């Protein structure tokens, strides 16, 4: 176990380093200078030079990279161009809402995905399979933000069962937090669930077509045991990978549907910073998201090694 974790960390840490260098160098891709972008049409060469001086943009790249890493180690992501607030502080305010939404979405996606996938994968070709698998095709095609608009229109605006504006911090009111998360989680979870369901169904069918199924059947092991103990564990190996993919997708989707549910998460921060070309904030959000994705994939890789003995380091 310890060996497995170390082995996987050996992959994750270099990836994280490369990502942070890439994120750092984003500002160098801006045509002209970020200072010009901030000043907009009123920019003069003098004012651009002044702003560059203030923001330290005119110093050598190597020096700035070292400073960037030095800051990272201490949890300092710099200062926002527009508000002048520390980026770390701005992120910290937004992270609870985003994480809550993603957590809810992942729970819905995994429950729906694995449930539907195992159910349909064990009875391929039946009416129930065709209906549910058709549902997953639809689930993948629906734009999540539109689904969010429909759900809020029906359950919040028309029926009034759930609040339209969802976010209540857990620390303020746990029940309100939960109720507010219902619609966002469903919206997020349906697409992810459809992706996981398709993967689960396919790997379930494949697992049950493997020769060992015949070996166990012929040895007298009852079908339910083969399906739900042997089949499911074999099927979970590729399903875990799809859960990792879905996690990254869900973060992106959560950024869009925040607007539908008026959630004060990273998405709205990213949106305003993108429009305002506030690069330190954009860099902060990207770095945080990438770290989160890499961390979750690390966790999944470790789980993968636990399930699949062939993926363990020798």
């Amino acid at each position: 176990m310890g060996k497995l974790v170390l082995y996987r960390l050996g992959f994750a840490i270099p990836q994280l380093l490369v990502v942070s260098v890439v994120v750092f160098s984003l500002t160098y891709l801006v045509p002209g200078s970020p200072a010009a972008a901030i000043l907009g049409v009123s920019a003069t060469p003098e004012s651009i030079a002044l702003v560059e001086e203030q923001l330290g943009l005119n110093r050598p790249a190597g020096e700035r990279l070292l400073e960037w890493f030095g800051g990272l180690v201490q949890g300092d992501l710099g200062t926002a161009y527009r508000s002048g607030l520390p980026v770390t502080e701005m992120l910290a305010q937004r992270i609870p809402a985003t994480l809550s939404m993603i957590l809810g979405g992942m729970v819905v996606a995994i429950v729906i995905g694995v449930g539907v996938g195992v159910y349909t994968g064990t009875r391929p070709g039946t009416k129930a399979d065709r209906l549910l698998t058709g549902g997953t095709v639809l689930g993948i095609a629906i734009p999540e933000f539109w689904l969010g608009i429909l759900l809020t229109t029906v359950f919040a605006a028309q029926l009034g069962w759930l609040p339209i504006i969802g976010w209540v911090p857990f620390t303020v009111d746990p029940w309100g937090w939960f109720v507010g998360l219902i619609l966002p989680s469903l919206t997020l979870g349906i697409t992810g669930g459809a992706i996981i369901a398709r993967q689960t169904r396919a790997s379930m069918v494949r697992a049950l077509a493997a020769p060992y199924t015949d070996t166990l059947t012929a040895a007298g092991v009852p079908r339910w045991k083969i399906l739900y103990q042997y089949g499911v564990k074999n099927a979970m190996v590729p399903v875990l990978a799809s859960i990792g993919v879905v996690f990254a997708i869900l973060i992106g989707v959560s950024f869009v549907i925040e607007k539908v549910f008026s959630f004060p998460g990273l998405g709205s921060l990213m949106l305003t910073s993108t429009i305002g070309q506030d690069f330190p904030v954009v860099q902060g959000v990207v770095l945080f998201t990438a770290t989160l994705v890499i961390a979750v994939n690390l966790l999944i890789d470790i789980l993968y090694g636990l399930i699949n003995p062939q993926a363990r380091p020798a």
Partner: protein
Amino acid sequence: MTTSTVGPAAASAPAARQASGPAQAWRRLRHQPVTLAAVITIAIIIVIAAAAPLIAPYDAGETDFTSVLAGPSADHLLGTDDFGHDILSQLIYAARTALIVGVGSVLVAMLIGVPMGLILGYKGGWYDRLGSRVMDIADAMPGIMIGFVVIAILGRGTLILIFAIGLIFSMNFARMVRAITLTERKKLYVESAHVTGLRNRQIVFGQVLPNLVGPLAVQGAVFLGNAIKVEAALSFLGLGLPDDQPSWGGMLRTAAEHQVDHPWMALPPGIAIVITVLALNLLGDGINDALSGARTSRKQRKRALHQAPTLAEVEEAKRAVSSVVTTPVAVAPALAQALVTTDKHPDTVLAVRDIHIVADRPDGEVVPLVSSLDLTVGRGEVMGLLGESGSGKSMLAKSILGLLPAGVRVESGSVELAGEELVGRTERQWREIRGKKLGVVFQNPQANLSPVHTVGRQLIDPLRIHHGMSKAVARDQAADLLDMVGVKDAAKRLDDYPHQFSGGMAQRVAIAIALAGDPDVLILDEATSALDVTTQSQVLDLVLDLREKLGMAVINITHDLGVAAEACDRVAIMYHGQLLEVNDVFSLFDEPHHPYTKALLASHPTADHKVDRLPTIADFVTADGEWIAR
């Protein structure tokens, strides 16, 4: 082999496959109603987008301030938005936007991804390591985030939007192209193309690219759908197209603002997106199925239901059916039956009587796989079932086990095991038989065991089921069983996984699993065929030992004359679903009766007579289904 003979043949091979590939794919495509519907839907959307100015009742930017936020009416079929835009017209013009941005970004994605994948897959080495790192980073980034970053850096605009969305999907194309290039590069024809002196560029464009066309079409359709979704999401957030350009996402942005007072506004653009994306995804699935030929007819699927078939079974049945179909069997039974000599055994444990096994083809034709076959096996006897592939010997074994693949069934006849009828049992009734009275070992040693469960678990489960043992007792028993089949350090190895066993050892484990319920009959279905010769004899010796020790009968199915001679008491010869001859092993090898048996024995290479060419067997059945006497 010389280069001069390999070169041209190899170069022409992919060309020939390309010629038949798309034609065949198109034939299959026509039989997929869902795909056809998707194609028609997409065609309609394209026509609407192209002819927008002719179809749309109002101009794209035309506003009607007398009618703002109005519901559907004769003037405005889908109502109007907050600026008095006609929603139907907006919807039609937005289809244009969606297609332009979607197609444009897929092209950008291909332009970046395809060359990148080709280079990584073809060059390998440092290129590949560096490129794979880049793809890893892209993996850690939600797609839409890449869109945000590109727009933050470059600003808003149609071309920037197309570039941003293209960048999101480019890594997917790169990954796919890299994987395909890697496989293609390893294939023989590219290697031989190297030998004939084709230049790298010719190899990439002539050999690798044609193989990419299919997968690129599939991915292209699917990513076009995704790109339209991303475009809608970005326009919804106000990051996409300029506000004056109609887009489905932009329309939903307005709709969301009026969701409480004018909820209907969200429906038309949303439905338009769903239909478009759905049609593109279904088209992608359809092309994929048409290229791989995976889709079965509905009727086939329905039939498959009752037996809970597995894909491998279906494939196997298809192979079996096709091999029989090439030479239809309408054999004069008299000829075959006359030569069955010693079919009686004083202490019969298994009796197959007049069994007919047939396959139902999707077109309704019933194809015989095994016809009027009789066979008895005595207690403690090793019966060899010898025949070419496609002779029906494995189907016979599967019918005895009740594991016939979907679409294959016992039409008539009976199988009696120790006085109990096996034909027509329900799944529940089979549980009394499988493991307890019948055990089986299949061909592939590694695949016979679940890769993610310990060997101990796979032994303990049947032991507990058959003997009602506690876990601890079953574990001891499992160790004893493993020890009995010759696995050293048995108790320790219970915690090992199948991949930690060699082929021969894994097959011993499979035998132990088959023996867990003390069966009366053990069936070896080509169980030693995948092993090397030394391991093969060791496993056969083990089986003979176990037969002595446990007194069970063994049915050893094989295509290998050596295996039949080495380890069988009696041998039955099968050919084209018929039993030709049964005799004790010495008589059969010394004085074969049936002409086919004679030919079969003659074709076996031995050290005694040196010949230039090995004798081959011409087909004994004519195209008309008549036996040819030789």
